[in-house]
């Protein structure tokens, strides 16, 4: 067993953590014998938690990620950047191909890599710690992918704030998490809208049975339909959504149960808080919690629009626009319209190459009860311009979800 040194990063050493149903504390974890600069490719949250505890209690440089994320090319890149690869039972070490001194305290995160090979973003435990001060005692559910920014946010909360326990969920436990969470006494849960939709689709009774005081959404655009559903299910809980990324840091937290954030928050300078602005329809964030080396005024690539005094984050600029014969359909707007139908549990909207008009709008749908193609088309026609009405609907049996808990499959 290791002894936690006194200091801020390990104030939560006595907090409970639950890994595959087994409870322990951070302070009881065995530390790892790691090279001073290491990329730790983990199989599960136990390995990940040990890597975090090792980092927090010694001077070193660490990257934590799921083994499945690291392709041979990415592994070679990491080694060429001076990180040894540690994998298997975490005693297998492939040394770095660049010799350099470790940067004590440095934590590397991989971006989601949705537009190519993941980039590395530099953080520290301090920059990843976005919640502090007195917090009500809670047991948090952490279903996020090992080493992702949202995962680190829950981990640093547990590591640094006394009274914040964490129940980790592995990717292979996503089908059964509500019952595990109930057994472990979870009172706060954070997940993507897709994560919540999938859980409510699969086993709404088990989700509703959880005594949640805090429900948090993030990682994807958050629409009003999913907020309303969660508020209805958990009337006593605070339902929040958060905008955060490894590059921008945690930047927006909204607790009023509405999609988007108040327009009055734009272009406002508050010490220690991010500055939010819109440039050409794109969200721009200047955050004190951003990764090192990231532009101060970061163009996020996220499309925003102001509707009735709220700034709505609708989707990625690069993938949101579908050009249908010269008219611009917004995939996120179409998705929101479909998801507002009472029988639709989840929808994904894309453009598909088509003759004459270039692209037409298509959608994949999961419903909670039988609903016809014609009915959904009529629903969309009443609410969207003609060119944005999905012309091909495909009904799926289950909500597809990736390890990132997002549905951009």
């Amino acid at each position, binding site marked *: 067993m290791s002894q936690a040194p006194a200091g801020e990063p390990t104030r939560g050493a006595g907090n409970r953590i639950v890994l595959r149903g087994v409870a322990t504390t951070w302070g009881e974890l065995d530390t790892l014998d790691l090279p001073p600069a290491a990329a730790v490719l983990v199989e599960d949250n136990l390995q990940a938690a040990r890597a975090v505890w090792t980092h927090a209690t010694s001077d070193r440089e660490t990257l934590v990620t799921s083994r499945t994320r690291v392709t041979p090319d990415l592994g070679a890149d990491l080694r060429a950047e001076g990180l040894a690869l540690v994998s298997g039972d975490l005693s297998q070490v492939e040394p770095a191909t660049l010799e350099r001194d470790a940067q004590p305290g440095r934590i590397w995160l991989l971006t989601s890599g949705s537009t190519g090979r993941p980039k590395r973003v530099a953080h520290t435990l301090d920059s990843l710690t976005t919640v502090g001060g007195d917090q009500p005692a809670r047991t948090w559910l952490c279903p996020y992918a090992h080493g992702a920014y949202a995962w680190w946010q829950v981990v640093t909360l547990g590591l640094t704030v006394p009274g914040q326990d964490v129940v980790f969920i592995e990717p292979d436990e996503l089908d059964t998490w509500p019952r595990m969470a109930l057994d472990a006494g979870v009172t706060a849960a954070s997940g993507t809208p897709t994560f919540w939709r999938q859980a409510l689709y699969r086993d709404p009774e088990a989700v509703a049975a959880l005594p949640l005081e805090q429900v948090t959404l993030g990682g994807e655009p958050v629409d009003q339909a999913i907020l309303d559903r969660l508020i209805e299910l958990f009337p006593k809980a605070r339902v929040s959504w958060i905008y955060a990324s490894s590059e921008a840091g945690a930047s927006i937290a909204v607790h009023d149960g509405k999609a988007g954030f108040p327009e009055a928050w734009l272009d406002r300078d508050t010490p220690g808080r991010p500055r939010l602005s819109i440039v050409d329809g794109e969200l721009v964030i200047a955050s004190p919690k951003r990764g090192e080396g990231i532009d101060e005024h970061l163009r996020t690539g996220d499309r925003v629009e102001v509707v009735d005094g709220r700034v709505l984050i609708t989707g990625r600029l690069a993938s949101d626009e579908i050009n249908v014969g010269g008219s611009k359909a917004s995939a996120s707007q179409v998705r929101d319209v479909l998801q507002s139908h009472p029988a639709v549990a989840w929808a994904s909207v894309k453009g598909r190459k088509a003759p004459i008009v270039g692209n037409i709008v298509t959608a994949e749908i999961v419903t909670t009860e039988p609903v016809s193609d014609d009915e959904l*088309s009529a629903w969309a026609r009443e609410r969207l311009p003609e060119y944005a009405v999905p*012309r091909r609907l495909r009904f799926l049996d289950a909500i597809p979800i990736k390890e990132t808990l997002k549905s951009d499959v």
Partner: protein
Amino acid sequence: MSALSRDQIRTMMAEVLAAQGKEMPAEDTANLEELGFRSLDFSELALRVEDETGEELNFDAPGLRQIQTVADVLDFLEQLQAA
């Protein structure tokens, strides 16, 4: 999967029209503009054919031409499948 027959394509065209509350005319000489069968509808029909046959249509092959009647649509899609 084998190519669709003219009658099968005709049935699909009727489905595209029916989804918009329009009726498929009996005569193949019917004018598309009068029928309200527009570019988007033609595109949808082409994708329905692709989905049914499991094969992508090569729209570059025969070269796009004037399509004014129901018969033109059926001829064109038949020709595309053969291309």
